[in-house]
């Protein structure tokens, strides 16, 4: 492993170990705010949270100990090529994430079908598809088919959004 890769690896491991530790501390603080009245059992709703918090703190410390003594054990290779993968591709990650955010923003107002079409096209773009408009159309047809199936066959309502008048014309409601 090159020195660079090894430094990157241990930085990620430190961050994740501290994350577990902090989650444990947060849980412990949250637990302290819970009431402890226990009735017959003598333990209340704060007992298991306490166990979970203490466990996470101990595990965070254990993970940190592993980082300090040579890194986490039995890890897959740090170099992407050795895992049969390529280096982290930020645009792909960003496109998939944006698709999900756009979907969240659109689903209540624009409706399930439009939100689904945008999500589909963004994800496809992230995976390297160059034809955004074609993907929008494919995503639209898939989401429309799912929408019609849920509304007509399962009678489960999904938000129709801006296209509601069109669906009404088509008899999908």
């Amino acid at each position, binding site marked *: 492993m090159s020195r660079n890769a090894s430094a990157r690896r241990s930085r990620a491991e430190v961050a994740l170990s501290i994350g577990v530790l902090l989650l444990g501390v947060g849980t412990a603080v*949250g637990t302290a705010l819970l009431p402890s009245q226990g009735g017959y059992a003598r333990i209340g709703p704060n007992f298991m949270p306490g166990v979970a918090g203490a*466990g996470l703190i101990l*595990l965070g410390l254990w993970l940190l100990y592993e980082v300090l003594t040579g890194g986490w054990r039995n890890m897959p290779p740090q170099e992407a090529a050795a895992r049969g993968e390529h280096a*982290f591709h930020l645009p792909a990650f960003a496109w*998939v994430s944006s698709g*999900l955010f756009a*979907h*969240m923003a659109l689903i209540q107002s624009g409706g399930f079908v439009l939100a689904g079409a945008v999500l589909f096209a963004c*994800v496809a773009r992230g995976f390297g598809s160059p034809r955004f408009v074609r993907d929008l159309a494919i995503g639209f047809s898939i989401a429309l088919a799912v929408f019609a199936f849920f509304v007509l066959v399962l*009678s489960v309502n999904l938000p129709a959004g801006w296209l509601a008048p069109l669906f009404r014309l088509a008899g999908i409601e």
Partner: protein
Amino acid sequence: MDGTLQALLHGFEIALLPMNLLWGAIGVTLGTAVGVLPGVGPALTVAMLLPLTVKLSPVGALIMFAGIYYGAMFGGSTTTILLNTPGESASIATALEGNKMAKRGQAGPALATSAIGSFIAGTIATLLVTLLAPLVVEIALKFGPAEYFALMVFAFTTVAAVLGASTVRGLSSLFVGLLLGLVGIDGQTGQPRFAFGVPELLDGVDVVVLAVGLFAVGEALYVGAYASRIPEVMDRISGSLWMSRSDWKRSWPAWLRGTAIGFPFGSIPAGGAEIPTFLSYAVEKKLTRHPGEFGHGAIEGVAGPEAANNASVTGALVPLLTLGIPTSATAAILLAAFQNYGIQPGPMLFQMQADLVWGLIASLYVGNVMLLVLNLPMIGIWVKVLTIPQPLLYGGILVFATLGAYSLHESVVDLATLYVFGLLGFAMRRWDIPVAPAVIGLILGPLAETQFRRALSISQGDPSVFYQHPISASLFAFTALLIVVPWVVRRVNRARAA
């Protein structure tokens, strides 16, 4: 014994109703169609298809789920053999020889031995479930809360600490799941915990959102970031689809041995089909008369692990149905599906809702047959599904993943939670933290807490209930041994080597 036969026959009357047969067939077909998609394992398949069953009766829904479960397994094997992308750790052993066979132009026999092996293992294992479940129910009826709690701790330990590459990473995943399980209203006092005043969180974290987030969104983020620029290579099916005489001769002992290895592992609450599949692979490698073929596509190396996988997965229904303890991510989601219908699996289920239980068990037999007759001839179609280009495939997966999360409560909060779990799943995948313990912790944690507090209520707060009852004491002792023995063995070996 007569009682079991009677109950099973009655179960068949239910499972063979035309409507239920139809739900079973739809389940098998959909399960295969989704399970065959690369990167989609059985757990995700079941989680994504959960919303489809909202309007069904409980019996119809569970029969459809049994079909989806089996279909997803079969679909996963197809992908593993043709693409060498095991969708779950239990398929890795299959990939070893299966993909080599496909590369040698023997994809047909590899798929056939996997399908027929799964059928035989599934049928034998279902028969064993039929015989074993009533016996376990007899024992389980004598269990009190202390015993249940001990059993759940045993399941947690094996799933998180004993299996997998690292004890500490497995336990971290489990505890994150346990913490998520605490979110919401405490069932015994009505006290809200870790809900931060968000009304949507009072209901708790839904296992579907967690599973779909970790498996689908996490997987899409991961594959996008690390593997979306690599051309895919698929092995074509060339030559005969059918197995030759010698293929049969070499397959059937492996099927039976795989079943014998897989079932016990599934039926004790020890979790995971991973160990039995590798054990079966090792056994076949040792016993084969064609040692030269191992590593280059030996059919026994596909037949054995596939049978072991199916037998173990079916065996896992014993702890799930009789004790309410899920031992794999897929079983955890099945348990969530039960809970959606207000059904709590456990020994009482066999008495209170015998129709449902035996209808489900009977439908497992039916589902196995359906899988064979529907899917073997349709292999050509499933292979076509594999040729969907990656961008469209993941676009589609995420449309269905978000649908599954959104349709639970029609809430954007669930979608936001889904993305957060997606980020978590990405990190866990990248830094090799197992995902299944978190899913099992989320669903089993609250049940364990309930049993724990119930046991202490009965004993008026005296913790000695856990070690004074012989069954719970021996379960705890066994759990402790499971952790300590491997650790001591490692130490001794290291000392000897030094």
